[in-house]
């Protein structure tokens, strides 16, 4: 694709009060291939959590973009990432989702690699009558960049990327609001649920910051909560959404450099959160403002492929695009270490009911993405009108709420629950456009 064509997919005219994204961003195979090459395989992607590889030689496998990757803690304690592809003929060398292995021996011709990805054996090397040219090559697994921010592991297949801290910028504060919830840190609860949906990956990026959809997409979930409340009164205020209409709620958004974005909102039922029980301890450790923000609803996207949604519970979701119209999602439940058994169980039930593709809310989101993808085949509707709520109040830099956190986003916007801000999508699409244009 030509650069001008790509740049033209985002109609970004703030002075005219216009922001639009072209439907080809969601349906074009050429755009998809460019996204994979430049964004997913050309920059930082989330890979997993440090706590998934606590011991030497622990590993997990994943994909960065389209490419199979092993993330492993070496015998020296360093976590590395390398391509999960044998140097002999490219077979996968690691077959499990997770495990512990000092070596990976390829089961095709028996080449062996240690837990740092170095080749430690070529079967019948001496007898192989190899040329000097062969010996001159490295036989190690291809290394990828791997960096850790407070337990969040990121991998880049492109070695020429800025340090992770620079990539995250002030978005890191929103990761702190997760990592600091317990003095002992966070843990990943056993059991993940993976699902696919037949629509573009960016619908997922958008939906997580989309306040506007909640009342129209999730009335059946709202009905369930209302039914519980009618049945046993206040005892049913057990999720963040139980009383979302009843109080003065602020909703805001921030966009950061490199495509990251955060939606946040004050919480009508902070007492429903497991964290509420340890609020004094948390405030003493991180300060009143950050403790309060931990209780807020926060849905964040660390561009391009990981989201943390803390509302009914705390979900980490990893986005894996498979095709322009096909995406795989994996959901993980994160929890503060050391919370009480009752709080833990309540967290899990809220998680399942809200976030699972077998729950009472997420299927309606996912179905809506599929409906959008199907509707976007209507070629005469190239430009959609879903990016302009909140444009009259969005401001450059940080608002006073960003000030509470001491951070400086590129843009920020806030208003009531019903404003349903859509400027939260602008930063991600501006970065998306710039990366694709640079990579075209």
């Amino acid at each position, binding site marked *: 694709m030509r650069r001008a064509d790509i740049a033209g997919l985002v109609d970004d005219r703030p002075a005219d009060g216009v922001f639009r994204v072209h439907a080809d961003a969601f349906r074009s195979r050429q755009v998809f291939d460019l996204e994979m090459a430049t964004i997913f395989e050309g920059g930082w992607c989330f890979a997993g959590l440090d706590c998934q590889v606590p011991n030497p030689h622990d590993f997990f496998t994943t994909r960065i973009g389209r490419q199979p990757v092993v993330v492993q803690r070496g015998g020296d304690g360093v976590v590395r990432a390398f391509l999960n592809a044998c140097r002999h003929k490219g077979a996968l060398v690691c077959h*499990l*989702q*997770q495990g512990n292995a000092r070596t990976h021996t390829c089961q095709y011709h028996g080449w062996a690699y240690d837990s740092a990805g170095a080749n430690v054996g070529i079967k019948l090397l001496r007898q192989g009558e190899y040329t000097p040219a062969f010996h001159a090559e490295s036989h190690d697994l291809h290394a990828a960049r791997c960096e850790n921010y407070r337990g969040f592991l990121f991998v880049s297949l492109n070695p020429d990327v800025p340090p992770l801290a620079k990539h995250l910028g002030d978005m890191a504060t929103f990761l702190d609001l997760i990592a600091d919830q317990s003095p002992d840190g966070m843990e990943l*609860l*056993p*059991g*993940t*649920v*993976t*699902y*696919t*949906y*037949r629509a573009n990956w960016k619908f997922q990026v958008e939906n997580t910051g989309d306040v506007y959809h909640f009342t129209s*997409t999730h*009335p*059946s*979930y709202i*009905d*369930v909560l209302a*039914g519980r409340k009618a*049945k046993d009164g206040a005892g049913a205020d057990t999720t963040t959404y139980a009383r979302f209409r009843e109080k003065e709620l602020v909703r805001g958004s921030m966009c950061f450099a490199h495509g990251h974005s955060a939606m946040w909102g004050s919480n009508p039922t902070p007492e429903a959160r497991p964290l509420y029980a340890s609020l004094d301890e948390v405030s003493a450790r991180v300060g009143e403002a950050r403790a309060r923000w931990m209780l807020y609803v926060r849905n964040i996207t660390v561009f391009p492929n990981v989201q943390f949604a803390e509302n009914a519970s705390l979900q980490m979701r990893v986005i894996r695009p498979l095709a322009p119209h096909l995406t*795989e999602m994996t959901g993980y*439940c994160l929890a503060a270490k050391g919370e009480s*058994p009752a709080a*833990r*169980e309540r967290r*899990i*039930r809220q*998680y*399942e009911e809200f976030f*699972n*593709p*077998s*729950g*009472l809310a*997420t*299927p*309606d989101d*996912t*179905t*809506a993405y*599929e*409906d959008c993808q199907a509707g976007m085949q209507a070629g005469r509707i190239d430009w959609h009108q879903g990016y302009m709520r909140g444009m009259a109040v969005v401001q450059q830099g940080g608002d006073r709420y960003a000030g509470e956190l001491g951070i400086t986003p590129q843009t920020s916007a806030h208003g009531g629950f019903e404003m349903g801000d859509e400027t939260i999508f602008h930063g991600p699409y501006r970065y998306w456009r710039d990366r694709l244009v640079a990579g075209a």
Partner: protein
Amino acid sequence: MSALAEANALLFAEAAALDERRWEDWLALFTEDCLYHVPAWRDEVTPTTDPRTEISIIHCAGRAQLAERVQRITGGRSVASLPPPRTAHVVGNVMLVEASDAALRVKSVWASHVFNVKRQDQHVFFSRVEHTLVRQDSAWRIARRHALLLNDRLPTMLDIYSL
């Protein structure tokens, strides 16, 4: 009727109620304090076992929670639940594991065929199921339904009619 025949009859009644979308009949097969559980998987070979500390695909404690799901499926306010899918549940390999006058433990295998009419796609969900049946008012009722879903990479969504 033998205990095995009674267990068969109840499982077939459950499958038929789901396929025919007779939700009240389906709910009536469960005890009020039933447990409906579909564990998630920890890794390739290990399902989760303790729903208090590990994630489940579905965990409903009590018939009232199943009724909430029925309300969502039938209420017309869930875009994911409309139009209704067509399903055919095939129940096989039914075995009595334990039997007394008061309770039966029954193992079976379910192949649940789901055709989503709007998306024009279909999927077979297969699971190994264990029912605990108890006798209430001279009829067997489901006190526990534990379905180990084997193909857990879910196409868009899954609900009680998919199991």
